[in-house]
């Protein structure tokens, strides 16, 4: 210990050894509860969707420009990378949608009790997964 402030950071482990306390919430030690995992996923999916709007803009600009530009975007979207991006985009969209609807319910003051949150913790990713699969089933069956 070189700094007096370190004294506040020292504690005892369950077997009595002196240990340096982790700075809370230390992501490598503190296990995120489900609500926190879904919360950070909501943010990540939102940023991913923001990046994904580039595809939408490219598609619209190409469709408004020329047959050649439209052919380029069409062939990109039908390439393996294009399909992967569209699939990721669909998954992010449905996840952000479902988690966002839960946020709207919370904003209206509903669904804050722990038993309800435990249910919606499963409902949100479950519904997002189901909607993603359903969307791609429709796409593949229609093709």
């Amino acid at each position, binding site marked *: 210990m070189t700094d007096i402030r370190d004294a506040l950071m020292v504690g005892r482990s369950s077997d009595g050894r002196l240990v340096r306390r982790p700075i809370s919430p230390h992501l490598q030690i503190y296990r995120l509860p489900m609500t926190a995992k879904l919360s950070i996923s909501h943010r990540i999916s939102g940023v991913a969707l923001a990046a994904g709007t580039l595809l939408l803009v490219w598609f619209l600009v190409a469709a408004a420009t020329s047959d050649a530009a439209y052919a380029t975007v069409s062939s990109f979207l039908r390439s393996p990378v294009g399909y992967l991006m569209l699939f990721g985009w669909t998954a992010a969209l449905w996840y952000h949608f479902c988690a966002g609807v839960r946020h709207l319910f919370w904003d209206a003051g509903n669904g804050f009790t722990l038993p309800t949150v435990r249910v919606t913790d499963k409902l949100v990713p479950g519904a997002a997964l189901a909607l993603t699969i359903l969307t791609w089933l429709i*796409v593949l069956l229609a093709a």
Partner: protein
Amino acid sequence: MSKSPEIAVMRSQLSRARGLGAAHSGTGHWWAERVTSIALVPLTLWFVYAAIHLAGLPRAAVVAWAGHPVNATLLLALILAVFHHLQLGLQVVIEDYIHTERPRLAWILAMKAGVALLGLAAAISVLKLAFAG
């Protein structure tokens, strides 16, 4: 004679009435995020339906589809709500992770410029499809 009781209020009455708080913008940002997200619930459902319909169609069919006033209206409404919602959300992300004032402001301005240009490009493309084909 005793002194009359006083309560020290650090905040001016004008500041309280304005209700703008420490962020200087009140609940405006938060509220706009909710309003756009409510609008995006039906618009997203419609958009996924439309995107599945448009998948794999030749350009002429996309032009004809966008030429329908209902489709063009909903597409423009979607673009407006998406890009407004998107810049509100990205602003919060930047504010949360960039703690120094100058780079934070620079990132927010750059992000807003990029989002505005993307949104305008999307909207103008839809208008061109709707009016000129």
